[in-house]
């Protein structure tokens, strides 16, 4: 497979996964803003998905409709959902002969949806939840189309690895930012809403309830998000699947490239697997998450260097 094509579809998957993750985070923040408007702030999300100056931030953060429009629809915000979808579609266009027609059509539909007046109206003036849900459904259709129509070849490998790598990054970031912003309540464990929001943001609330029978405590949540093997967004689960798909790539790789990446991915998976962090020590947790994040980025850079011909 051409290096450029591999790069393109790997990033296509990353953009789509990122869009899905950020929409869910925005959705949960929006819910929180309606539940407890007094001690709520949009600041962390605005920092994560945009680059507003201090004045712009101050002017925007009080106005929920404006915040949502900026995060989701703003063409001038490079990190907005709109731009992610746009990028994903451009990537799909330039690798059209390596993805199936169905996958292309889903992306094309998604792109037309996020540009539509209907969604914009809903997010700005109507019920933003409906607007966000409609967009996320397109994301789900995309994932389904990939699952059901793509041949299980090299291309599928890059698509899946892009998705898993991005998901691991998102989990790490969401956990770190949520935890850091609510360090006190997270440690004491008395204020369950924060933990619930965290789990919701990672699509893990239902599974957590089933696993721990409604018993909310910070250590269990941490264990769950980092290590639960049934939870599709847990760090361990992302990394073990990443290794699995990477091993499938051996036959299509240069031996030296394969060895280099195999070492990095394996080390990272073990680093997470054998980590001991606890909710009682937020600083240690923060360091661990930052370290993990850096290693994930290193893996991404190594992919670029050894497989996608980036220097």
């Amino acid at each position, binding site marked *: 497979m*051409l290096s450029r094509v591999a790069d393109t579809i790997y990033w296509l998957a990353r953009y789509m996964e990122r869009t899905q993750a950020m929409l869910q985070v925005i959705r949960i923040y929006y819910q929180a803003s309606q539940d407890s408007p007094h001690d709520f702030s949009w600041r962390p999300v605005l920092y994560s998905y945009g680059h507003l100056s201090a004045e712009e931030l101050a002017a925007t953060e009080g106005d929920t409709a404006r915040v949502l429009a900026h995060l989701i629809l703003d063409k001038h915000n490079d990190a907005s959902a709109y731009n992610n979808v746009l990028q994903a579609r451009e990537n799909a266009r330039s690798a059209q*002969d390596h993805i199936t027609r169905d996958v292309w*059509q889903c992306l094309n539909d998604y792109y037309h949806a996020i540009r539509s007046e209907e969604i914009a109206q809903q997010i700005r003036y109507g019920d933003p939840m409906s607007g966000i849900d409609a967009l996320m459904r397109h994301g789900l259709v995309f994932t389904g189309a990939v699952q059901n129509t793509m041949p299980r070849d090299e291309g599928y490998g890059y698509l899946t690895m892009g998705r898993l790598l991005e998901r691991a990054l998102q989990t790490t970031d969401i956990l770190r930012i949520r935890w850091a912003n609510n360090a006190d309540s997270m440690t004491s464990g008395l204020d369950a809403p924060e933990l619930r929001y965290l789990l919701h943001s990672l699509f893990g609330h239902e599974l957590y309830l089933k696993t721990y029978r409604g018993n909310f405590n910070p250590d269990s949540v941490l264990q769950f998000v980092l290590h639960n093997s049934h939870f599709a967004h847990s760090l361990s689960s992302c990394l073990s699947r990443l290794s699995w798909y990477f091993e499938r790539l051996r036959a299509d790789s240069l031996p030296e490239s394969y060895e280099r990446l195999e070492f990095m991915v394996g080390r990272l998976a073990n680093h997470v697997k054998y980590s001991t962090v606890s909710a009682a020590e937020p600083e240690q947790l923060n360091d661990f998450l930052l370290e993990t994040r850096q290693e994930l980025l290193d893996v991404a850079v190594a992919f670029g260097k050894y497989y996608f011909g980036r220097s």
Partner: protein
Amino acid sequence: MKEHALLHAYQEQPNVWDEMFHAEHIRPEYRSFVSAIENLPHAEMTRKDELAKKLFMSQGITFTVYNSGEGIEKIFPFDIIPRIIQHQEWKHIEAGIKQRLLALNIFLKDIYHQQFIVKDGVIPAALIYSCPQFLREMVNVQVPYDIYTHIAGVDLIRDADGQFYVLEDNLRTPSGVSYMLENRSITSRIFPDLLPKSNVQPVKDYPDLLFRNLLALGNRHVSDPTVVLLSPGIYNSAYFEHTTLARLMGIELVEGRDLIVHNHHVFMKTTKGLRQVDVIYRRVDDEFLDPLVFRPDSALGVPGIYAAYRKGNVAIVNAMGNGVADDKAVYSYVPEMIRYYLNEEPILKTVPTYQMSNPDQRNMVFERMDKMVIKRTNESGGYGMLIGSSATEEQMQAFREAITEDPRSFIAQPIISLSSTPCYINGVLQPRRVDLRPFALYGPGGIDIVPGGLTRVALQEGSLVVNSSQGGGSKDTWVLGE
């Protein structure tokens, strides 16, 4: 007979050959089609028209117009009424194109080697050497099987007398073949069962024929030569066609940055390292192909590819330097070429062409500019031309000045009235002007022309410009079997 309301409203134009009607009667090749649609209710025709549009949009058969940094999806307008050509007529066209292509190919071989045609005084040397598309770099380059014009999209028009004329040969990177294929597949959806009933010859073999020819050009001793399609990328207006052809042939679609030249061999960068490329079907123009030899600012090409080509380590389709045979001033010599190289009389007619570098002809054209089409010799796509009958005095004056300054870059032709054919527009049949672009494939085994082609339509009422960049559309083209 025009009994049905839909047909009844149709107005034939005076002094224009109509493809479907002749003196109020339906031509024989259209009868089967007309009998199939004449009893359809009005609403059904409109429904078919809408279905066609929907199919184009949902299948992503679109081209993107980039405007203020934002892409806008457009469909290439499609008219649901097919253009139909009878068998005998097609045989004539086919023979004419084969003859022309054969002669043009020998001309290219000759002009880049011994230049007999110049030495024998058939074509003036000044005409060749003043052509910017004549590439001195191609002199004495051996191309595989001596084939230069692997793919040609010959533009034909039909004058009021019913004769076909060649307008352009398009020997560089002709486009539109994907629309020929897509138009046919759309027609089969909106008029179920009508194609087999009408004995329409299939066009679906095109990608297989092309791929067979490309494979045959690989000269490395391997069982499976690597063939790629080189595209300028997603911002090119024909990008849809590039992906379609690559997909239909199952070959890799590459961009310039995917290729690298090492030791006069071309390689593509893959996830498993470098892989040698044997044949390149390029859709990048000559001047952008190699920044070391042609335009140094080109980011679309591959540095060193010319040298690899010259050494015979890679085949490039179409060959470089074909533009000299596409030059509109050289065009007028094609009948002479046919006589000189093949010792035959030309089968297809050419439009009389006046060289603006000839003072007598220039003065004659200046006097009757309103009856002329003025064209730049090296442009296509409907750019750089003036149609005298619809031009203002200022526009004519601007052309007169430009011609006086650089006469070699212009030619003039009398205005040929393109034939018309009914189009279904706003619920009624209206006459619109059309041309015809069949696609010819020249391979080591000979020339193949898929029975069909792209019929382009000037959708503006009364317009004679069919180019898609100037608001043209297209139709499915049926060639009937025996």
